[in-house]
C-alpha cells in the first residue's frame, strides 16, 4: 500500500492544530526549513532568499528611538520568514519531514499563525503572477540607456537597487547582495521598469507596435486585485 503524501500547506495546517514545536525540512537538505513553536511559525529559511543574520546586520547597533525602533527586529524576522516561505511553498511538491527541535535563536520570540502565513503567501503568489509577463525574481534586468524623461525621481530603496546594478542582474541577485526581501526587490525592480529606468529584453517595445509585456508593464501591479480577484 502506498501512503499519500501531504502537501506542505496541509502539513503546516495539521502541525498548527496539534500545536507542534520543531521544523519541517526536506530530507538531506538542511538549508530549507520552516520552524514552528507550539503550532505557530517562528522562522523559515531558504538558500534562495537572504538569511536572517545578513538582514539583521543592517539594523543600527542600538534600536532607533520610538516604539517602531523597538519592533524593527521583529519586522525583519517576519519579512525573512514570509520571503522564504513564498519560495518554499511555491517550489514545493517534494516530501517534507517534520522533526522536533528549536528555532534559531536570532528568530526571537515573535510568531505567525500558520493561517496568516499561508494567506500572505497566496497574496504574494498573486502579485508574482501579475508581474510574470514582464518580470520574475530570476529575470535579468539592466539599466535602460534610453531615458524618456529629462529627470526622474526615485525612492531611497529604488536608488539602492539602481546603485547595486552594475551590468545585468536578476531581482533575486540584487536582493541577495543587499540582504533584502526577494519579493520586495522584485516589486521595486518592476516599478523601476515602469519608470523606464530598467529594462528586460522582453519589455522593450517592438517596432511599430506595443508588445503584450509593455502593455502589462503600463497596467502595473494591483495589490487590491490580489486580494479581491485572485486567479
Amino acid at each position, binding site marked *: 500500500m502506498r501512503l499519500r503524501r501531504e502537501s506542505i500547506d496541509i502539513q503546516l495546517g495539521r502541525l498548527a492544530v496539534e500545536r507542534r514545536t520543531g521544523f519541517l525540512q526536506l530530507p538531506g537538505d538542511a538549508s530549507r526549513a520552516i520552524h514552528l513553536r507550539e503550532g505557530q511559525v517562528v522562522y523559515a529559511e531558504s538558500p534562495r532568499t537572504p538569511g536572517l543574520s545578513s538582514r539583521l546586520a543592517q539594523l543600527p547597533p542600538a534600536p532607533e528611538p520610538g516604539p517602531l525602533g523597538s519592533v524593527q527586529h521583529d519586522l525583519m524576522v517576519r519579512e525573512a520568514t514570509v520571503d522564504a516561505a513564498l519560495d518554499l511553498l511555491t517550489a514545493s511538491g517534494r516530501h517534507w519531514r517534520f522533526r522536533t527541535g528549536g528555532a534559531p535563536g536570532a528568530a526571537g520570540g515573535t510568531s505567525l499563525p500558520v493561517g496568516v502565513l499561508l494567506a500572505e503567501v497566496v497574496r504574494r503568489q498573486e502579485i508574482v503572477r501579475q508581474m510574470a509577463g514582464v518580470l520574475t525574481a530570476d529575470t535579468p534586468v539592466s539599466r535602460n540607456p534610453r531615458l524618456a524623461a529629462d529627470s526622474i525621481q526615485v525612492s531611497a530603496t529604488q536608488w539602492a537597487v539602481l546603485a547595486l546594478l552594475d551590468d545585468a542582474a536578476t531581482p533575486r541577485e540584487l536582493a541577495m547582495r543587499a540582504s533584502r526581501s526577494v*519579493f520586495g526587490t522584485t516589486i521595486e525592480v518592476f516599478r523601476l521598469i*515602469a519608470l523606464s529606468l530598467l529594462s528586460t529584453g522582453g519589455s522593450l517595445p517592438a517596432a511599430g507596435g506595443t508588445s503584450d509585456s509593455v502593455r502589462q508593464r503600463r497596467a502595473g501591479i494591483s*495589490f487590491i486585485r490580489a486580494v479581491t480577484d485572485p486567479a
Partner: protein
Amino acid sequence: MLAPPIDTLLAQLRDIHGFQLACLIDAETGTVLGSVQDRGDLRLPVAAAGATDVVGVLSLMSGSLATDGELEDVIVTFSNYYHLIRLLPPSPAGRLILLVSLDRMDANLAMAHREIREFAASLQG
C-alpha cells in the same frame, strides 16, 4: 523586555472620533504588519491593499514629475467614510504606510488629521 506589538501601538488611535480601523502596512510588499478594528464593516485586507495601491500610483506620479517632494499623506473622502493614509519616513525595516479609516458622520477631519500626524511622528521617537 518584549517590544510592544504593533496592534497595541495602533490601539491608541481608537480615541479618534469616528474610528473604524487602523493598520500599518509595508509599502514595498503590501504586507499588513498590524491592525486594530472596531467594527467589521470594512474588509481590512481590501482597505490595506487599496491604500498600498494609492501610494504606489502617487509614487509613480511623483517619480515621473520629479518635483523633489515626498508624499506625506492622502485623504480619501467617501460619502460615509474618510480614509487617511500617511507615509512614515524610511527606516531599516522599510517604508511603512499608516491607514486610518473613520466614520464620516462622527469624525472631525481636521482634528483627526492632526492626531494621526502626531501619532505617526511619535512612532519614530
